[in-house]
Every structure is written in C-alpha cells, then in structure tokens.
C-alpha cells in the first residue's frame, strides 16, 4: 500500500504548488481575457529577491520585501505594458513573453545562470502513512491550502473579489453597473503576482531557482488552466491535482523517464474530448 500512499502524498504536494501558480493565471484570464505569458517571472523574481537578500536582512524580511516588490512589479507590468495594448491579443502575448524573457536575461546579467536555493524554513523529515518526506514539503502543503482558501474567500466575499467575479461573468454588464474594469484587472494582476510569489516563497527552499525556470512555471500553469477551463478557479485547482497525481503515478508505476510526457498527453486527450477544458464556460470563446 505504500506506493499508493506515496502517489497521493507527493501528488498532493506538487498539486498544491501548481494550484497556487495556476490560480493567478486563470484569474487574469477570467477578468481581462488575456494570457499573461510573463506569469513565470513573478515566481522567478520572488525567488531571486529572497536569495539575494536573505543573508543580509534575514529570511522573514526577505520574504516580506520580495512579496511587496513582486506586487508592485505586477501592477507596473499591467499599467505600463498590458493596459495600452489591451485590445490587441497577439501584441499582449508578445509583450508579456518579452517581459518574461527580459527578467530571465536580467537575472543572467546581474546574477548568474547556476541554480541556487535558500535554506528550508524547517529541516529534517516527517513520516505520514509510512512515507517519509522533507518537512518543508509539509509547510508547502499547509501554506498553499491556507492561501488557496483565503483567495477563495477573498474572491467570494470582498468588494474587489465581487468586482472580479462580476467582470469575469459579464464584462459589459459589470461596466454598466459602474465597476472600473481597468482597475479591477490591475488588482487581479497584482493578486496573481502575489499568488505566484507565495508559491515561490514556499517552494524555492525545497527546490531551487535558475533563470530558465520561469518558463516551466508558465507552461505548467498554462497547461493546468486550459485543462481545467480558462477562467474557472475550480478548474485550476482540479487541473492541478490531476496533473500532480498523474506525474507521481507515472514516477511510481510506469517509469520516471515518461513523467514529463504522460501528463501532457493526458491534457491533449482531455482537450480533444472537451475543447473548453473540464470546467470551461461555453461563452468564454
């Protein structure tokens, strides 16, 4: 029974990180109808800011500083680059892609290309259901569940959250009701940046960062979000879990060499059966 427990535990851990990353990506699409290809840079930059500063100002301040900076970067990227091009979808794809590319090169020029890591918040390992895993993974699990729950509450209860929902459901009507679509989209991009940043805060200490990793983050979030259905928060979370479990299932029962291939084949198959993803709305396209 241990292998099944391992698939569940490691699948859940991966899924919780993917979930955080995909959630923000999906929110931005839901509100603005744009695919933000610079999504990976939020993760990457947060990781690097922590890595560059934690030795001088301590890990706690490094995390706070990184999250503040990343939220500002998110807001600025919207105001300076996305907003002026909002009507042109291809231009948005390219400019957000260029932005991600820019940050990758920025890190290469002012840092280096070798993978780095930051020390874990907690050391050692713990055992659940007979499966040992590093304690930091447990922190990831708890942390991301709390954040996902808070995000869910925020979207359903707060004022900004309500505008976000209103615009995702019916942009025209929401604007007629006096909701400022541009400002809401800016908040959404900032929330999305914060979510990706939190994913980095939780995951980088257990993993590592290197300049090219922003693209892995992006393609994972992209895949999950389309798989779950664009703009659907439920879809993002469910998609993340399916991807996480598929990966660890392949690792254990098939062959690790296929763990990169099988999940994307699953995505394509689902997409062919349901062209709008699992929970995609019909009116999205």
């Amino acid at each position, binding site marked *: 029974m241990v292998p099944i427990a391992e698939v569940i535990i490691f699948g859940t851990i991966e899924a919780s990180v993917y979930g955080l990353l995909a959630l923000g990506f999906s929110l931005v699409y839901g509100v603005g109808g744009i695919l933000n290809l610079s999504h990976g840079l939020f993760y990457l930059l947060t990781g690097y800011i922590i890595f560059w500063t934690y030795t001088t100002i301590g890990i706690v301040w490094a995390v706070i500083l990184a999250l503040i900076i990343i939220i500002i970067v998110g807001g600025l990227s919207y105001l300076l680059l996305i907003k002026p091009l909002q009507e042109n979808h291809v231009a948005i794809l390219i400019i957000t892609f260029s932005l991600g590319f820019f940050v990758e090169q920025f890190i290469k020029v002012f840092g280096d*290309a070798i993978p780095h890591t930051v020390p874990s918040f907690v050391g050692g390992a713990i055992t659940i259901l007979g499966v040992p895993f590093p304690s930091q993974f447990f922190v990831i699990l708890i942390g991301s569940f709390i954040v996902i729950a808070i995000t869910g509450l925020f979207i359903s209860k707060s004022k900004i959250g309500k505008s976000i929902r209103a615009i995702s459901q019916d942009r025209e009507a929401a604007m007629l009701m006096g909701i400022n679509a541009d400002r809401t989209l800016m908040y959404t991009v900032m929330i999305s940046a914060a979510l990706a940043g939190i994913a980095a805060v939780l995951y980088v200490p257990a993993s590592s960062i*290197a300049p090219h990793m922003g693209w892995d983050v992006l393609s994972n979030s992209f895949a999950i979000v389309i798989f779950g259905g664009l703009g659907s928060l439920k879809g993002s979370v469910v998609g993340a879990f399916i991807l996480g479990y598929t990966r660890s299932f392949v690792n*254990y029962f098939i062959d690790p*060499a296929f763990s990169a291939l099988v999940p994307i084949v699953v995505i394509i198959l689902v997409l062919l059966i349901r062209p709008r993803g699992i929970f995609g709305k019909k009116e999205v396209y």
Partner: protein
Amino acid sequence: MNKKLNYKIYRSDENMERSTKRILAIVLVIAVAGAGLGIGLWFVFAPQESIFETPGVSGVSDDRLIKIGLLGGITEIQGEGNYEGAWLAAYNINQAGGVQVNGTTYYIGLVAEDTDESNPVLDVTKGVSAAEKIIEVDGAEYIIGGFRTEALKAYVEVVMDAKKLFLGTGASTDYFCGNVYGEAYSSYTRYKYWFRTMPINSSALGGSQITIMAYLGGYLSAVLAKPVTKVAILREALDWTIPMANALNTYLPYYGFTIVADIQYPITATATDFATYWNQIEGLDAQITIPVISAQGGLYMMSQYAALQPQCLIVGIDVQSQLDTFWTDTSGDCKYETIMQSVHRTNKSDLTIAFWDDFVATFDHEPLYTAVGAYDSVNLIADGINATGSFKAQRLITWLESFTRSSPMIGKSVTASHIAWNPSHDLEVGWPFGTTLYCQWQADGSKHVITSGNLLYPDSIVTGPISLPPWGIND
C-alpha cells in the same frame, strides 16, 4: 488687401517651410545612405584593430600572435572555465617570454566567442555562427573548447570544414573521437583535426566507476561487518549516460553487486520527484547509489538526500558538485557525496598543486575541469609550435600523434604525469595516464580525494579518509 497680403505671406511661408523640409529630407537621405554605406564598407574592408587578447604582454602586432580561439558558453561555468584556464596558460607563457619559432618570438593571443551551449533551451545556430565568426572573421588558427554534445556536433563540422586544429576540453562522449577512427561513418582525413585533452571518455568513466565500486564493496563490507552489495543507479535520461549505465549493468554483477534500481529521470524533474526517487531507492534497501548527472538534478538529489537521509553512500558523477560553490548552493546538504573529478589539489602530476594554487590566486575560485583542459591545451599548442617550428595544423597533428602509450609526453600536463593519444585521438587512460579522482565532500565543507585502494591511482595522492553518513548504511 490686408487679408490678401497676409495670405501671400502665409503662402510663401508655407513654400519656405516645404523647401526647407525638402532640403532637410534630402540631407537626411544622403546622410543615412552615406552612413549606411560607410558602416557597410567599414565592416567589410576596415583593417580592424586586433581583437586578440594577449594576457601578460601588450602591444604585440597581429603577425606575432599564435591565434587561439575559445568556443563555449562564455556566460556559464563550463565556457567560463575554458576561458580562465586558457587565459592563465597564455599569461604564464607570455610572461615567460613567449614562444620561440625559428628565432622569432611569438605570443599567445586569445579570442572567445559565445556558443551559448550551456543554455538549457539550446539554439544550435548560436554555436555554428560563433564557430564561423571565430575562424572567418576573427582569424583564429587553433580552437579550444566544446562542452554540450548536441551543440558541439553542429559546430565541430564548421571547424573541420576549415581544417583547423580543435582541442576538445569539455565533452566526454565517445562520438567525436569515434569520428576520427573506429566507428561507422568515421573519416580520418576529415576529422583528424579533433583531439581530446579533457575529460577522459565516457566508457573510461564507466570503467573507473566499476573499479572504485569493486574496492568500495570490499572496504565497506569490512568496515561495516556486513555484505555491501545492493546498488542503485540514478541518472539523467540523456544519451551520454547510456554507455555508462550499460557498462554498470553488465559488469557490476561480476563483482557480486545486485542492481536494485536503475532510475532514469527526465531533465525537467523537480525536487518532489527526487523525494520519490529516494523513497524508491530506500525502499529497495540500496547501500550505494551511483548518480550520473550533469545538470541541476544534482542539487535536488543532495537536498533531498540530506532531508530524507536514505541509508546509502553516493558515489558517481555529478558535474555541478565539482564546483566549490556547490557547498553554499546546497546549504551544506552535499556532505558525504563522493564524485568524480579530474583534478584536485593533490600531486596528480608534479605541476598540479602549483597550477591549482596559481589558479585560485588569480580567479579566487577552484578550477572546473574545462579550465584544466584549456590550460593544458594552450600549453600543448605552444609546445607543439615550438617543437615543430611550424604553425601548420598538419605538422601539429603529426606531432601530437607521435605521443603514444609506448612513447608518452611526460611532465607537461597538470592532469596527468603521462599524456598520450590513441588512434582515435582520445586520451589514453589509466594511471599514470588520464585518470579520474574520487573526491568526497566532508561535514566541514572541505573536499578530500579518497582512496581507491591503489586501483585507480596510488594512495600517495589521497588527501583524506572516506566518511560515512552518521545515519548509517542499510543492511
């Protein structure tokens, strides 16, 4: 009337403005055309000032240079190592008065181009274009470098087309030497310009691994008073790991080992994936794990190893662990890892320690294997030109080919006391020829050369004992 006048003035104003604009436009067109033509002509015809760097001397004219081109991903560790090693050798040679050829003094000139080959997202056009530039534009006569097989496979053809000597310092695959002699589609006349100076080839790495395993199996069984026979292999799912894995799977059973797992992971594997690999390995009670890793997987492997503490010893290849920065990059999680390393601060040859200290004093970090290879390569080119009195690639090839196992070059290299090439222009291996050292990270952050029981290299160059992880080894 007033109105009319006004209108006239306005008209002539407009005309004035139009003609001024026209003149400006003509000037602009002529200026742009002239500038374009000028830049174009300058690009093609201008006698460019020398782009060659001459470490240790200055003001050497271009015709007194031995022009060496360095190809590699300059911004990343392998290419940087290649450049640093060559720079140090050039500095030493130039400071000592250059190279004498038929009574004239020549100096080493270096030029580097970026092939961007260490980039995980590889674009081979960068390498091809860098190789064309370094030969056709910069005018390099001898090439040193190469690391990533896929990129090197493309641009080695450019260098062979141009018939320039190419000393490989980074790629361990058998392919390139196989081109020279001994494999299907090999062609000596085309590929004879290729020689390998570093590292020893991947089949020999497999042989070294089997030898150290034979020794360690006996040693650990004796120290731990229990049979140590269960081995796991953890490797990147890339072509270069295949020969080594085949060798291990075939020969280790003859030495009494059982391979309990052979895990090939995709290069995109994450930290979580590595936790699952360790759990699988631990579940099978492996006592020794052999990594065969060149990329960032090593980092994950060690951080998960430190957290999960599987009861096994790690002995194998992990390229990034060769760097002295690996200790801080893993926050010390790399302790007890034993890896292959071509050079460490020990008397591998009489020159090694002096080179090592010189390098550390110059660059403030330890040399990567490409740095050692490039250092040797520049010295080889200088010695060859000095010995043959010729700059011709063919004369140098004949000279290099004259060093065989029975008549080696002695006391010239920092990696081995004896240097020789086999018919496929690959380094001869086995002490005192090319050998790999096994170095282990210690709990205090230092790295020791451990014993191979006199099998791979003599115990006289060992710098420390084998340490076992305090959490023990599986039964």
